[in-house]
Structures are given as structure tokens and as C-alpha cells.
């Protein structure tokens, strides 16, 4: 019995090690089912209002010259290296060799230059052998970070088709319905583990949640208020707070009195309660455009409510004021935020009424931070809000001054920053949390439903 027992023990141990290893070891194959609200195949349509999921899908098909690591530091993508002159106006990017588009055409500097010119008509982009040269009108120290944006992905437009060099190719596309992506064996960064991705389009958060519950989807978007509930049943992965929620006034204040009333409004809003109750802690209250984890100076822009001060400011203004607050009728979150803000404003003596009419005095807006680079993120946020921002340098102080100037214009009142959260199926393995909520699907593989 002893020898048999030893052999059985040895065999059992070997089997246990083998099974344990199989659970953690990458595995090729399988179809990843994804559900999202919207998607596009054109990088020029990336960003608002498509949202981060649309950008993530784009970067499965297309590559950018530069990528950003988790700290926002540029890393080689299709460009292996880059250098700028002293003025930071002329940039040269040396391209990776041996990269091919989907149909086999080689990736060249000419194609890269043409793609960038299409995305940025104001840029002077030329090719120089295996390099792309960008000549800018003004210094742009954070150009590599801009080239990491999805909208600057390199594409080849041919006969109405848009081809990319990304890890997946589009094998089926029905606008608004579904999208099928197939892994490329010849991808320069290595073949993705999954064979293909089937994306269901036009699904609301509620439908996505149902698809996840029914195991029809393995990757879904989560609304902030869903995060708490979904996390009870499914793995939930969330980014750093990378989506700005703010109040955007239709126009600049026409008088100091109006600016004072906007200040009173900003003080009346109980951001903490909003985050705790309405957002289920899915965000971070903030008085700045950029999140604290990105800049570190968020504390300089107070976010706590001060109703007494708000009332005082309001009482100092004799003229009646009545604002209409708008929201995105397709976004329940902005609606409920607007409802709460209306109540907070009334607490301060400010008359405010909800309206979904096109012309309102101010509205609740959501703006994704498209870059992990703070300067680039501020520029993109300002552009999305229709505000002008000027940075005199690339230091944190320059960034603070620029952001402070924007906020002091009282066109925008930051409320908080939301995390981007995804619900994952139990079979999804090796999900890498990215601060900006981007997907690292090529490194993801599928296991059994129950780990």
C-alpha cells in the first residue's frame, strides 16, 4: 500500500500542478463577446460623443505612432523613436519597419504622413525616407502624447475602406448592429490570444448588463451607478477617474454679478453627496478640470459645498435670476445629476428649472479625458467644451495656471471625475487595468467560465 500511496500522491500532485498551471497560462483561441453602446470604424470620429469604448475598439484595428504607458509617458508604437528641435516645432518620427496593412500593403512614411494630414489639416506633415516629419506653427512639447490619441491612428483609406495595421481586422460590419474582428497572425506586436471579437452594438447599459448576466457578453460597459450592483455578481474593472462631469454655461458671464451667481452655484453643489449616493462612489468630487491623480493640485480648487457662502453671494445680488439646466436626454446620469443640482441651487436661493430643450442656460456635460498626458488631456477637454486654453510651458505650474484661467472664466463648473468601469465575464483572463480605461485585449485570453 505504501508504494501505491506514494505513487498516487505523486500523480495527484502532478495533476494539481498541471491544472493550476493551465488556469494561469495564456491560451490561444476563443471568441470574445463584447457589448457596447456605439462604435465607429473611422478614427476621425473618435472621442466625444462616442466614448472610451469606441476608442478602444478603434485601437484594436488601428495603431498609433506613439502609445502612452500608465504614467502617461510616450512609448514607441508604429514609431520607434522621435526627436524634436529646440523650439519643439519640428518633430521627426522614425517608423517601425516590417509593418503591413491588412491586405498586405507595407506601412510607409508616405501613408503615415497622409493619415496624419487627414486627421490634422493644420499640420504640415511630410515623409522623409522611413521617417515622418511634422512642422508645427507653434511649439508643441506634448506632440507625442497627441499622436497617441485614437483619432491620430494611422489608417489607409482606399476605395471607401479604412485599413489599419492593428492586431485585429474587421471581417464583418453592420453599422449600429454588430462588428466582428479577427486576430491577425502577422501582427507586428504578436498575435492576440483570442481568435476573434464579436461586438454587439447599440446596446444600452441595461441590455449590456443583461447580456453579461446571461453570459452572452464577456466585456460590457458599466454606467457609474451600475458599478456597485454589478460588482456583486461579476468582476468589475475600473479605471482611474478619467471622465469629467461639469456644468457648462452657454456663454461667458455678461457681468460680474452673473459671475458671482455662478460662483454661488458652484458653492451650492454638494458633490460628495452626489458621488456617494447618485454615483455610488463611482467618481471623485472635483473642482478642477483634470483629476487629482493626474495633476496633484486638485486641492487648490475647492469642491466642498458651502451653502451659507452661496446664499450670501446670492443675497448680494438683487436682480432675479432663473436658469434652465439642460441634460443629455439619452443619458440618465446627466438627468439625475441635473435634478440634484437643481435642488442644491434652490437651497442657495438660485432659481433653476430642468429642461431638455436645445437652448438652455447651462447643461450637465460629460467629457472623457482622452489622454493620460495632463497637458494633452487639458487641451482636449477644453476643445471639447469649446473653451480656449493657453499653456505657456510644460511644467505643472504652467498647467495649473492654464486650468485656473479657464475656471476663473466661470464658463465651466467642474463637478467630479468618473471612473470608466467594465463588467467582465468569468472567462476573461489577464485583464490589465489601465488608468485611462483603455483595453489591452491582445494580451487577454479566455479561460473556463469558472476559474
Amino acid at each position, binding site marked *: 500500500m505504501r508504494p501505491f500511496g506514494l505513487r498516487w500522491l505523486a500523480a495527484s500532485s502532478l495533476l494539481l500542478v498541471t491544472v493550476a498551471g493551465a488556469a494561469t497560462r495564456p491560451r490561444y483561441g476563443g471568441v470574445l463577446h463584447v457589448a457596447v453602446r456605439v462604435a465607429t470604424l473611422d478614427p476621425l470620429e473618435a472621442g466625444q460623443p462616442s466614448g472610451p469604448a469606441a476608442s478602444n475598439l478603434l485601437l484594436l484595428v488601428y495603431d498609433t505612432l506613439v502609445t502612452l504607458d500608465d504614467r502617461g509617458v510616450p512609448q514607441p508604437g508604429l514609431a520607434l523613436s522621435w526627436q524634436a528641435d529646440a523650439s519643439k516645432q519640428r518633430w521627426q518620427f522614425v517608423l517601425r519597419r516590417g509593418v503591413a496593412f491588412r491586405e498586405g500593403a507595407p506601412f510607409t512614411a508616405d501613408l503615415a504622413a497622409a493619415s496624419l494630414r487627414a486627421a490634422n489639416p493644420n499640420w504640415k506633415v511630410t515623409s522623409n525616407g522611413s521617417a515622418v516629419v511634422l512642422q508645427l506653427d507653434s511649439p508643441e512639447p506634448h506632440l507625442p502624447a497627441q499622436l497617441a490619441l485614437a483619432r491620430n491612428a494611422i489608417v489607409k483609406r482606399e476605395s471607401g475602406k479604412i485599413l489599419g495595421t492593428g492586431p485585429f481586422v474587421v471581417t464583418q460590419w453592420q453599422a449600429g448592429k454588430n462588428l466582428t474582428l479577427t486576430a491577425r497572425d502577422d501582427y507586428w506586436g504578436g498575435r492576440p490570444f483570442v481568435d476573434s471579437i464579436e461586438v454587439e452594438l447599440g446596446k444600452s447599459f441595461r441590455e449590456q448588463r443583461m447580456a453579461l448576466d446571461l453570459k452572452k457578453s464577456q466585456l460590457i460597459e458599466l454606467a457609474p451607478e451600475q458599478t456597485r450592483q454589478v460588482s456583486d455578481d461579476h468582476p468589475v474593472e475600473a479605471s482611474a477617474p478619467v471622465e469629467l462631469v461639469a456644468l457648462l454655461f452657454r456663454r461667458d458671464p455678461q457681468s460680474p454679478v452673473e459671475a458671482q451667481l455662478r460662483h454661488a452655484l458652484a458653492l451650492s453643489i454638494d458633490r460628495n453627496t452626489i458621488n456617494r449616493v447618485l454615483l455610488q462612489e463611482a467618481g471623485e468630487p472635483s473642482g478642477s478640470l483634470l483629476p487629482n491623480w493626474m495633476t496633484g493640485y486638485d486641492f487648490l480648487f475647492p469642491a466642498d459645498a458651502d451653502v451659507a457662502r452661496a446664499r450670501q453671494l446670492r443675497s448680494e445680488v438683487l436682480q432675479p435670476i432663473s436658469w434652465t439646466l439642460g441634460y443629455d436626454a439619452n443619458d440618465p446620469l446627466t438627468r439625475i445629476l441635473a435634478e440634484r443640482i437643481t435642488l442644491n441651487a434652490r437651497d442657495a436661493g438660485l432659481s433653476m428649472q*430642468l429642461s431638455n430643450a436645445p437652448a438652455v442656460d447651462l447643461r450637465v456635460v460629460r467629457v472623457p479625458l482622452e489622454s493620460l498626458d495632463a497637458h494633452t488631456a487639458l487641451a482636449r477637454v477644453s476643445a471639447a467644451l469649446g473653451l480656449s486654453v493657453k499653456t505657456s510651458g510644460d511644467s505643472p505650474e504652467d498647467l495649473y495656471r492654464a486650468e485656473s484661467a479657464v475656471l476663473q472664466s466661470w464658463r465651466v463648473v467642474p463637478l467630479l471625475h468618473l471612473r470608466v468601469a467594465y463588467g467582465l465575464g468569468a472567462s476573461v483572463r489577464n485583464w490589465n487595468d489601465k488608468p485611462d480605461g483603455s483595453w489591452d485585449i491582445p494580451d487577454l485570453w479566455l479561460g473556463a467560465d469558472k476559474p
Partner: protein
Amino acid sequence: MSFRRRLLSVFALTVLLSVAAVALIVSWATRRAFSRANEQRTTALAAQFRHEFSRRGEDIVQRIQAIAAGDTATRMALASASEPHDYGAYLGTAKALAESQQLDYLEFVDSQGVILSSAQWPGKFGYKESFPVSPAFPKDAFLKPEELPDGVALGLFAVRPVIAGDKPLYVIGGRTLDKNFLAGLDLPTGMRAMLYQNLGGDISPQRLIDAEGPVEHAEQILPVVQRMQKQPQETSALLHWSGNAADDEALHAFPLTGQDNQLLGILLVGSSRREYVELRRHIRSAALLGGGVGLVLAILFSGWAAGRVTRPVEQLAAAARDVTAGKWSTQVPVTSADELGELAESFNRMTRDLLDQKERLVQSERVAAWRELARRLAHELKNPLFPLQLTVENLVRARQRSPEQFDEVFRESSETLLTEIANLKGIIGRFSEFSKMPQPQIQPVQLNEIVQNVARLFQAQFRASEATAIGCRMELGTLDPIAADPELLHRALSNLVLNAMDAMPQGGTLTLRTRQESDRVFAEVADTGSGLTPEECERIFTPYYTSKAHGTGLGLAIVQSVVSDHGGRISVRSEPGQGTAFIIELPKTQAGQAH
């Protein structure tokens, strides 16, 4: 207007008035019936609204009761006892339960009135509920204005407590009183229900809705709302939407009040008057058509009936005209046994009697005339005959007694006899002349000339004796020529002048006067003699009647015959002692003669 036309008009007017009266009565009865039916329908609709209101209220109460009895509410009631509240845990609770119970409003409120979870305003957690909650909550559903982020709405609410700990938790929920509520009402054709949500001090057309949403042209209805706001009691009005009365709408308003009798809503029931107006138009058209047809029929019938009634009358009138014209034997047919037939019988009897009387009169007059003629002749002839008798007796006596003187007597007697015989011939000649009056030879004549010729003829006789001189005065007017026989007129006027001279043996004034009136001319011969008695005036134109000692009584008869032959007439005006005037009236033209 003839009797027939008058009768026809009376018949037609009677029919027309009858039809008009019937149309008015029917129209009045229709309006009254329609008003009554409309009132009944409105009352029924208001009752239906109240019933629906009550039914839905009960439904809401049951749903709120179900929520209050559920596990979720119980857990929330237990959790609400601890402070601070975990509002995040209840954030979607009210909304989910409201959706499951098909409620528009649902709130969980703690014993302090603080909202824990709200379906209609999820962001309102932590705020005070406007409705005061207490253990003495209303058992039935009630109307309540609900403040929403985008305005105020009117809802039907119910409250139920959840007793699961030391402090009660209240469930307040309901449904919007909106167009869907109105759409659920079963409205008869031509009626509509509207609701004014009286949720603000001012009046706004946006708050007036019907089953399809905001009411178009609500401004015209707002005065009724305003009246109701001043005095919250049932009222009604008539709305004129256009110049067409068929577009009018009768509006009845019913107040909807809340817990504290505050006017929160107004139910307006509109009833189109198109049906009534079109019915009234149909009646009017039918009345007009009936009246028209009736009028035509009335005219036809009236013509027939009037003809039937008036034909005997017309025959009687024609017969009377014939009798007037001298046809004394005229008879009318007797066609019926009624009053008209009796009238015709009477007429016929009258003409027969008249004819008999006339014949008797003619015979008696003829006898009287012959007697008068005989008397006249005897009288006229006796006067000459008496001298003839004396003369012949004188001759006989002279032959017997004094033959020597016979020749002388014979000669004188012969002269006397010849004179008296001539006198007899004259008398006989005048009678002969009267019997042989010629037919007038009509020609254009100036009457004034004839009068002047007559006056000129008798000038010498007027002045025959100075003691008995007669003054002749001429008063001749301007006359148009007349159609007459100048010779006969001259003879007639001469006779009148002779009569006047005879009437003035002591002299006097003879006046010859002419004048013209329209289509007739007048010639007047007036004397200043002793005049005539009324009896004499009546008989003076009778042949052979005379008031003179030696008259034949034929002069004025001849004058009357001449005047009558000219289509005229003669009259006398006289008073005793004042003279006599004879007036001849002649037409300008003779019958059948054109101007």
C-alpha cells in the same frame, strides 16, 4: 284687391303661418330636447369622470398598499430607523417599484418627512416632502400638486404607512392626471374632456390639456377657467369657434379640489353643438321646403276653393251689372244649396219681381201717359174748340136774327175760325215735332258759340218792353270742344231760355253760364223768376207736365231727350222766390268716340 285674391291670400298666409308655427315649435322642442340630452350627457360624463377618478384612486391605493406591504418597504422601514440614512442604497428603489406597479410617482418618506427614495425625482433624497405626513394620513386617494424638476404636475395620490420599527415609513405614490387619464374616459361622439391643471397663480394655456395633449386655441377657454378660479363651482359657457354656429361648443366646468379644498384642477367637458345646429338647419330646411310646397299647394287649393266660393258671387255681381244695364230678366244659376245658393235664389227672385214690377210700372205709366196725353189733348184742343163753337153759334144766331149783319159776322167769324184752326194746327204740329225727334249728328262743337248764338237770337225779345226787360248775363268758361249735334243743342238751350223768359214776366236777369270739369262740360241757364216748388222740380221733366197756363209740357221733355241722346243729363236747382237754374251736363266725347 278682388275677393278671390283676398281669399287666396288669406288661405296662403294661413298655411304659411301654420308651417312657420310648426317649424318654430319643432325647433324649440328640439333645442329643449337637445339641451336636456346634452345636460344628461354632460352629467353622465362628469359622473363617469368621478367614477373613473374614484376607480383609479382605489387602484392607486391598492398599489401603494401592496408596496407598503412588500419586503422592500419593510426593509427600508427598518433601515430608516438608523441615522444617517444610506440614501445610495435606496436610490433606484422607488423608481423600480414605481415601474413595477405602473405608478408615475412614488416616494418613501421617513417619519420626519424626509425623502429616502423618489421615483419622480431620484435626486431629491434627503429633502423634505411637501405633503405633511402624519399618522392621520388620508385613507382615500386625493389630488395633489407634485413638484418635479421640470415643473409642477397634478397627480392622484395615496399614502400608506409602513410600520416595521419604532418610526413609521410612509409610502406616497400616485399617477399623473394627464392626457392619458383623459384618454381613458369613454366619451360620446361630439364630446371631449379637458383638464386644466390649476398649479400656478397665473393662467397658462399650456396647462389646459385634452386626451391628445395641449389644447389648441386654449385662449378662448381660459375665461371659463378664470371664472372658475374666482368662484370654484360648476359653471358653463358657450364657445364660438367661428362664424359657423355648427362649430359652437357648450362647455361645462367642474372644479377638482385637493385635501384642503384648494382648487387644483378643472374638468372641462365640451359638447359640440354641430349635431343640434345641423338638426335645426334640417328642420328649418324642411320647414322652408314644407312651407314652400304648402304655399304652392295653398295657392292652388286656395285658387280652386276661392274660385268655387267666389264664382257664384261673381255671377251675382255680373248679373247685378246686367240688371243695372237694364237687363231685368237676368238670372244666375243656382249651383249649391248653401248660403250662396240661397243668395242666388234670392237674386233670381228679386229680378223676377223687379221685372214684374217694371212691367206693371210701365203699363201704369203708359196708361198714365195716355191719360195725361188725353188730358192735354183735351185741354189743348178744348181751348181752341170753345171759340170755334162760339163763332159757329154766333154765325147761326146771326143768320137767324140779323141776316143783314150776317156777312159782316161771317167775315169776322171766318177770320176767328181760321185763327183758331191755325192754333189747332200749331198744337198738333208741336206734338208731331216731339214725336219726330231726330238722331243727333255728332261733330266737334264749341258749346260757348252755341250759347252765344242762342243769346243773340233772343236779344230783341229781351228788350221788347222796357217795363219787362230781361237782362242777359254771360259767364262763359274756357271749354274744350265737345262731340255733339249743334242744332239739337241749340234747340234745347232755346227751350230753356224761353222757359226762363216765361218765368220772368216782370223782367229779371237771365244768366247763361258754362264751365268744364275734367271730362265733362256744364251749361247752366238760370233765371230770377218765382222759382219752383220741390214737387214741381220732381215732375218738371215729365212729358206734358207744365206749370204754365198755356204750356204743352213738351219743352223740357224735348230738352231732356236731347241731353239724354248726347249721353248727358239735366238737373234743376230751384227755390221758391229765388229763381230756377237748369244745368246741362255733357261728356266731352260720346261713347265709342276717341279723343
